[in-house]
């Protein structure tokens, strides 16, 4: 491993920022178009009110809250997986950590939009914050919705700092390489990091502390989101399994999204030397394990609904696979429980097209899973005379699609402004691998 190898790694990694193909512009164009369409739909809701949504008694939470929960779920596995791989000293972290952490921050920023849109008078969202005001009113700190505000803002702050701290060496590297107006920008962003032995020692001391903070925070945040539902007495929601069920679902959907993003990066920027088949094989095994946990929680939910003897609870669970939303239930089972079973076969784990297909199915399945438990409980709870049916309207669907556009827009901009794979960690990894005789020089 000589200086030329390090220069090559640096060139390959930073190439994602300088090389822009027509595929990138096409993807960015599509994503921005979705954002524009979603923005127009939101402006309709702002001008005409919440009546443009399909929300009405008894279903007051619909596609927007579903998308919020979905994106929060996706966000949770990025930083969590990165931190766990860090503690495991896994060599896989160098390739997938940065993208996963960026995915976390971007998905939380996307998820946070949906409750703001959902409340209708979005300009008053700051009412949920605790600030001194003339009315001498304070948030209700006993409410899970207030817990959510604190949990999510804490998580996005810590995740962003975790991502930023890990990028400092690469930002310093960029400050040395770029020219013009970007040089002072990256120099400022690097906080003066220059790679002295003391700084590396300090970073190696601070990073595990951060990873240790991030892991319980990630688990707690999705638990708190689950308590938005579980703390109520609604049949189908009031369950102690909700927190672990949500955390498992979060990891499941996050891994599927990570596979999709990494596959896109690998193909789009010819990063086959760095994002390798064994990375996808590892992620597919995690996906399979998370799928089995999810299937177990689905079964447990049904068992407990009938075992506990609550007629309302049992009725909701009887209605899910047989009622008006039965097609959603069976779609969820096919996408989340059956499709990932294909990962038991080594050939599937080694096939990128197969993994991408399964990840798309899982992403679709997880969105509909969130939709299923939110809507069916509200549409079919205690009072039969109060049962109803919810169907998202066109503006709701467009706003949800706009969220996906927003997510991909931010991610595509991220990979143009920052290295999507850690350069310093890849150099360290290649150096260690060459010494251990694992790899021939020239292969990261």
């Amino acid at each position, binding site marked *: 491993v000589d200086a030329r190898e390090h220069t090559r790694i640096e060139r390959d990694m930073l190439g994602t920022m300088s090389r822009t193909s027509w595929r990138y512009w096409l993807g960015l164009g599509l994503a921005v178009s979705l954002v524009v369409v979603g923005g127009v739909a939101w402006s309709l809701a702002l001008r005409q009110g919440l009546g443009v949504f399909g929300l009405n008694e008894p279903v007051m939470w619909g596609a927007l809250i579903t998308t919020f929960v979905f994106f929060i779920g996706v966000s949770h596995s990025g930083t969590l997986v990165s931190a766990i791989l860090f503690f495991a000293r896994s060599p896989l972290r160098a390739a997938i950590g940065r993208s996963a952490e960026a995915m976390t921050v971007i998905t939380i920023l996307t998820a946070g939009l949906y409750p703001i849109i959902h409340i209708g008078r979005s300009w008053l969202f700051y009412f949920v914050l605790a600030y001194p005001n003339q009315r001498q009113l*304070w948030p209700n*700190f006993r409410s899970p919705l207030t817990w959510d505000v*604190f949990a999510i803002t804490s998580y996005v*702050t810590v995740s962003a700092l975790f991502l*930023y701290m890990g990028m400092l060496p690469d930002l310093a590297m960029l400050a040395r390489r770029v020219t013009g107006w970007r040089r002072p920008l990256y120099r400022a962003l690097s*906080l003066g990091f220059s790679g002295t*032995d*003391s700084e590396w020692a300090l970073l190696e001391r601070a990073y595990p502390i951060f990873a240790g*903070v991030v892991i319980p*925070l990630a688990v707690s945040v999705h638990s708190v989101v689950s308590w938005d539902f579980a703390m109520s007495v609604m049949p189908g929601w009031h369950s102690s399994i909700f927190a672990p069920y949500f955390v498992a679902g979060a990891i499941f959907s996050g891994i599927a999204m990570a596979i999709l993003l990494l596959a896109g990066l690998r193909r789009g920027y010819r990063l086959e030397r760095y994002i390798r088949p064994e990375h996808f094989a590892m992620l597919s095994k995690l996906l399979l394990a998370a799928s089995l946990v999810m299937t177990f929680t689905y079964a447990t939910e049904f068992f407990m609904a009938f075992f506990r003897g609550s007629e309302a609870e049992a009725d909701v669970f009887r209605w899910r696979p047989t009622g008006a939303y039965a097609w959603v239930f069976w779609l969820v089972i096919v996408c989340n429980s059956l499709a990932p079973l294909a990962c038991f076969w080594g050939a599937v784990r080694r096939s990128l097209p197969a993994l991408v297909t399964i990840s798309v199915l899982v992403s679709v399945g997880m969105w509909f899973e969130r939709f299923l438990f939110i809507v069916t409980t509200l549409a079919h709870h205690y009072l039969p005379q109060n049962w109803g049916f919810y169907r998202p309207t066109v503006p709701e669907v467009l706003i949800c699609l706009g969220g996906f556009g927003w997510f991909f827009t931010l991610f595509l901009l991220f990979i143009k402004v920052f290295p999507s794979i850690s350069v310093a960690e890849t150099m360290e990894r290649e150096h260690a691998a060459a010494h251990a005789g694992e790899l021939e020089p020239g292969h990261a």
Partner: protein
Amino acid sequence: MPEPRVTIFADPDAAARALQRLQESGVTDARLVSSAPFPAVHLTGRPGPWPVLGKVVLGGAVTGAVCAALLQALTSRSLGLVVGGKPILAWPAFGVIIFELTLLFAGVTNFLAMALLAAAARRRVPTAARAAVGSERIVVVVPGERLEGPEAAAVLRALEEGRP
């Protein structure tokens, strides 16, 4: 006092060899600047009193917990609502936000402390050495006073032997 000796290596292993030779020659305060955390960065003497970082983070975490408890207790007493049968000071319910803010303050304190300590630490390495580093350049800095006296020749030889 003579200027510090700044030597540039293209290979991290060569820099590590030079550092080992320097330590064998009695030079334990050489410094290294590298764009990646190669094993050589662990071969320099005592990089700093970084265990203080853990204590600072603990202080931040405790501050977060206290702030969260006070925020919820004082504002709940200021607006005395009994919600869902829960008392005004509903500590089990307050536990969630106490937990979140504890971790938030710990994380932010960790980052700020790391940034400040790093800014102080890098000042001890000459600017020329920090400017010379690159993906293909690893820099070893020997303090100027080591280049005086009888061990100077051994130091220079150690640096030279590190070269491939």
